[in-house]
């Protein structure tokens, strides 16, 4: 177990290293002189030269990379062009807004998908199964940003139940998820975020449940006189380790995929930050945000793997 954990942690290091290489490359693949990408359009020639020296852009690429990495490791990801503020602070603030709604969304998706999965597997091929499968296919196929637009049309435009965008007057400062006047701003983003993982997880739960229900040992349980409900509880307990792992993975995808949903709802998270960076071609901000999100994704995967190997000791063999 500990050996597996150690090995898994050590294997994460080259991955994180690769992530930094790709993020570093983002500036390189951006068209034009990298210095122009790092500078605001209004900067003077002297500014450009100063920056060029500061970034060591006259040096060969590997050296530039090492310099850049050294700064990143101490938390310096450069300055945002648009606001001229440190990227690090801006990204971390936004990240908190993203991670909270992503977690709420994924937990809701997890609970609902377990219920749906059980209901569908209970009478495999029945009407409920077909309906749930249809919802799952919808969840998997729907573009989240369109779903967001639809939600706005229904709940904000037609019904006027929920605010269409933003985080309310106070912004993210002092935003209280426990008070309805604040939380209602988060409702639609959460629904839009939750649907795709709901679709995927329902599908997985359903298929792994019906696989288990067809195995011999379940027949034995039935023969022993267990009720269908008891058998189902048994089966659900069996798929939990895999389902929990799935939950972690989906959380990772959500923080990456939040860019579209947050753009639709102008929710001030990392996704919205990315959109802003794209519109203003603020490459340092883009690079910093991507780096933080990808690192978070890698770390979430690591935690999921470790947690799963704790729950399910068979894992460590592979």
């Amino acid at each position, binding site marked *: 177990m500990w*050996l597996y954990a*150690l*090995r898994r942690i*050590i294997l994460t290091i080259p991955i994180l290293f690769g992530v930094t290489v790709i993020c570093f490359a983002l500036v390189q693949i951006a068209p034009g002189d990298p210095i122009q990408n790092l500078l605001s359009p209004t900067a003077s020639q002297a500014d450009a030269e100063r920056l060029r020296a500061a970034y060591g852009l006259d040096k060969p690429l590997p050296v530039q990379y090492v310099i850049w990495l050294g700064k990143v490791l101490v938390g310096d990801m450069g300055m945002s062009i648009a606001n001229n503020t440190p990227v690090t602070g801006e990204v971390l603030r936004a990240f908190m807004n993203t991670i909270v709604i992503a977690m709420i969304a994924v937990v809701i998706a997890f609970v609902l998908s377990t219920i749906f999965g059980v209901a569908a597997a209970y009478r495999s091929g029945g009407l409920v199964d077909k309906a749930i499968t249809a919802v799952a296919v919808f969840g998997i196929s729907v573009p989240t940003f369109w779903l967001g637009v639809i939600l706005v049309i229904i709940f904000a435009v037609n019904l006027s139940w929920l605010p269409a965008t933003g985080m309310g007057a106070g912004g993210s400062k002092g935003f209280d998820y426990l008070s309805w006047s604040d939380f209602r701003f988060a409702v639609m983003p959460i629904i839009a975020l939750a649907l795709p993982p709901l679709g995927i997880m329902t599908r997985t739960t359903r298929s792994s449940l019906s696989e288990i229900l067809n195995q011999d040992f379940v027949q034995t349980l039935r023969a022993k006189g267990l009720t269908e409900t008891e058998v189902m509880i048994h089966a659900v307990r069996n798929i939990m380790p895999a389902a929990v792992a799935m939950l972690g993975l989906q959380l990772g995808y959500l923080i990456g995929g939040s860019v579209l949903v947050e753009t639709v709802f102008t929710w001030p998270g990392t996704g919205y930050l990315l959109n802003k960076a794209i519109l203003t071609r603020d490459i340092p901000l883009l690079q910093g945000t991507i780096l933080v999100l990808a690192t978070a994704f890698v770390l979430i995967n690591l935690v999921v793997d470790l947690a799963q190997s704790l729950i399910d000791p068979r894992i460590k063999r592979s």
Partner: protein
Amino acid sequence: MTQMAISPPAAASEDPRDRGGPAQPMLIVDGIRKYFPIRAGVLNRTVAEVKAVDDISFYVVKGETLGIVGESGCGKSTLARLLMHLIDRDDGHLILDGDLVGEETGVPLDGLRRALQMVFQDSYSSLNPRLPIEQSIAYGPKVQGASSKVAKAQARALMEKVGLKANLFAQRYPHELSGGQKQRVNIARALALDPRLLILDEAVSALDKSVEAQVLNLLEDLKRQLNLTYIFISHDLHVVRYISDRVLVMYLGQVVEIGPVDKIYEDPQHPYTQALLACRLSMDPEERVEAAPLAGDPPNPVNPPSGCRFHTRCPFMEDVCMSKAPSLGDVLRSSAQDHLAACHMVHPGSGHSRAPLAVRA
């Protein structure tokens, strides 16, 4: 080294492909070795090795069938793959009809390919599931330069030769054949390059008894017609006795006994061979012997026992067996009639209490 005095087999007819003369063994295997690394740990380093084939020497006389037997995992398939050059050997030489194989001076690998072919165990993986069997058979000749028309004609002729009607079967896919039919295709595919030596690894093991008999008869017929030499690997001692001229017994990557089939079956020298044969007999209720002689699992080939590898399971084990490895003797200089065993009990002066005092006649 490459020429040696052994009596030629009874009826070795002239073969235009012959280079070394009838007395030259078809294949000489000299000190061949293969260790598989086992990787583990945080950095995936090699921490140990499976000694799958550990210093094996023997030869196959032209026109004979050499049976190879041994428990599962003793290295039979690894040996077959080494002979076929499907995996690289760590050490040792192969001499094919007098020519060193693979090294710069000897026969090129391509020559070996033609002369040596292998029939795999019937399984879902022995035939390409996406190719009609005609194409599976024709593939070899095409690779060797035949036009696809010639190769196809050859494939159809071979199908008839192994007892499959070409009109009926040529376009079929493997999943549309029975086990016996698939095995005939496997044989036809191996014959397509006109080989001189066929290695049959568990070629009939997965078949029903009656089908097995048909395929064995087919193999006997083909051998006569095509002047073939066989290395026949199996764990079924009945089948090996039926088809072999000589038998080689393997234990944990080594040869423990080799000799003519009747001598091995009627007078086994090595306690392991004796145990194997006793196991076989015990399956037949009329000849059941007391107590299963082969107790326990074979030891781990990663860390084989010191001295004689069989000592952990041998009823005659003595101190000398743990400290000193018994030798089989110089197999390559022995005659095909010789019966050799790697056990201290057969070597005079070995220090084992049951060892003979003088050289036996």
